[in-house]
């Protein structure tokens, strides 16, 4: 029952597309860059009107530093392609609200202008979480915190001076901004999702066409291989040169089949299948085609990964398996996929003859794998018994 309750809350907190990692990434980028933009505007204002920056405000310096650090922390995860989930963005907003409120407390409550920082913070919350209800609930939390601070800290509200009307106006501005941004975000997200869906549809059509071509090629190569095998059986050991030629051609047909299976299996990534499942199937295909036993193991639960991340990881695994098959003469191959907190590890190992010295630095295969790993903020490590 508790699990169901948590699930219902999670569904409410992550409405609609926020379970889609591509949408979270997009929303995170917009809100993070938006925050930096606000910082830039503030710095320009301070440079233009140095009078805003009184020396006594130096004690508040930790507040903007911490706010910037929070934003920088999430931005660093984005830049290093580490997963940024809606939980991270919620924590960022919560941290902001807490720091802004603390700043207002330090500044003496109602009279402080720090309350202005609530506006962009709440606006960026609405950018990430497009649910009107959630945005309003979050705004109410901030409004209650702010009103409480105004009433209890310092001299409180001066009713004779009409402070209560000013406070209500400030709170009303909070709600207006959040509702406005929430509506704009929803409109923009629908527009963006329509555009993404159109792009995905085009990519799907291209992939289907590619899969059809590759599938036909693979099946043709397979049938050629069966024909060669038949010819090899008929030839027996009568002609050693013929047998050698047929064996070499048979190996070539297997190599061709394996090469074209790459794009075919990669097509499943766009269908939204989990990487672990695709790799498991790819390893089974590897074993069937090459005759080399391939074992796939996974530890940890696969988090929602973007299409690009899954495609790059698949490409690395396919290239590593291809290298093993073509160059290592392995007796067996192991693929290990591991998901730890914020970290993905993919290992492809074999018990073959190893690599020659310097081989890891050469060739398109290794360069491509390294490039894929670096694009995801990771690194490629090559270990060889010989090289």
């Amino acid at each position, binding site marked *: 029952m508790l699990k169901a309750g948590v699930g219902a809350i999670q569904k409410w907190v992550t409405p609609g597309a926020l379970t889609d990692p591509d949408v979270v990434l997009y929303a995170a980028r917009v809100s993070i860059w938006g925050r930096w933009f606000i910082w830039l505007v503030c710095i320009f204002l301070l440079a233009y009107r140095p009078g805003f920056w009184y020396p006594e405000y130096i004690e508040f310096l930790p507040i903007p530093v911490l706010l910037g650090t929070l934003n920088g922390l999430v931005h660093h995860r984005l830049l290093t392609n580490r997963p940024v989930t809606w939980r991270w963005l919620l924590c960022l907003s919560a941290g902001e609200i807490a720091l802004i409120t603390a700043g207002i407390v330090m500044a003496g409550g109602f009279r402080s202008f720090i309350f202005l920082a609530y506006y962009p913070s709440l606006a960026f919350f609405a950018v990430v979480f497009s649910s009107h209800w959630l945005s309003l609930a979050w705004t109410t939390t901030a409004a209650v915190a702010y009103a409480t601070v105004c009433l209890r800290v310092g001299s409180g509200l001066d009713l004779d001076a009409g402070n209560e009307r000013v406070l209500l106006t400030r709170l009303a501005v909070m709600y207006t901004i959040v509702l406005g941004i929430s509506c704009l975000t929803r409109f923009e997200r629908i527009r963006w999702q329509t555009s993404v869906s159109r792009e995905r549809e085009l990519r799907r059509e291209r992939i289907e066409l590619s899969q059809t071509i590759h599938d036909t090629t693979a099946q043709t190569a397979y*049938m050629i291989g069966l024909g060669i095998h038949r010819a090899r059986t008929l030839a027996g050991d009568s002609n050693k040169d013929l047998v050698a030629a047929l064996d070499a051609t048979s190996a070539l047909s297997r190599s061709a089949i394996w090469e074209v299976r790459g794009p075919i299996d990669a097509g499943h990534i766009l269908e939204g299948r989990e990487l672990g499942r695709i790799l498991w199937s790819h390893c*089974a295909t590897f074993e*069937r085609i090459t005759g080399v036993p391939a074992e796939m193991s996974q530890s940890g639960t696969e988090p929602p990964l973007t299409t690009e991340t899954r495609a790059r990881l698949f490409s690395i695994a396919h290239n590593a398996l291809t290298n093993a098959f073509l160059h290592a003469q392995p007796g067996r191959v192991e693929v290990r996929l591991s998901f730890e907190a914020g970290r993905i590890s993919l290992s492809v190992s074999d018990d073959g003859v190893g690599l020659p010295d310097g081989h890891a630095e050469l060739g398109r295969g290794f360069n491509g794998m390294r490039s894929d790993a670096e694009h995801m903020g990771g690194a490629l490590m090559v270990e060889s018994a010989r090289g």
Partner: protein
Amino acid sequence: MSAAGRIRVMVVDDHPVMRNGLRDVLEASGRFEVVGQAGDGEEAVRTVEELKPEVIVMDVIMPVKDGIDACREIMELLPDTRVMMLTASTEEDAVIEAVAAGATGYLEKYSRPEELDFAQVHGPRMPPGFAWRQ
């Protein structure tokens, strides 16, 4: 069985290359006679009563009607026919669906020739945990 004592087989695959290739390989073994071919599940269901094959080797993914649906309908028309599904994927879902539809086994596409065990066409094997319909 045919007059020559060979097992009557029908091959169903949307790729002509695969159909013709399988026909050649099966007939070259000397144990099978390919009595018909079909390019999709619909055509297979339409012609199966006339051809009356003992074994049908059928692809899973095909246009018009896929192998799973075709297998289900063929089992209603000719319950004694053994259907071997041809699959490029060993994913459990495809195998489970095929068994539920009445298939008696599966052949893996792209298996190495020496490992392509056509003997299982008349003595099929299944992964552990599956019960065979004999």
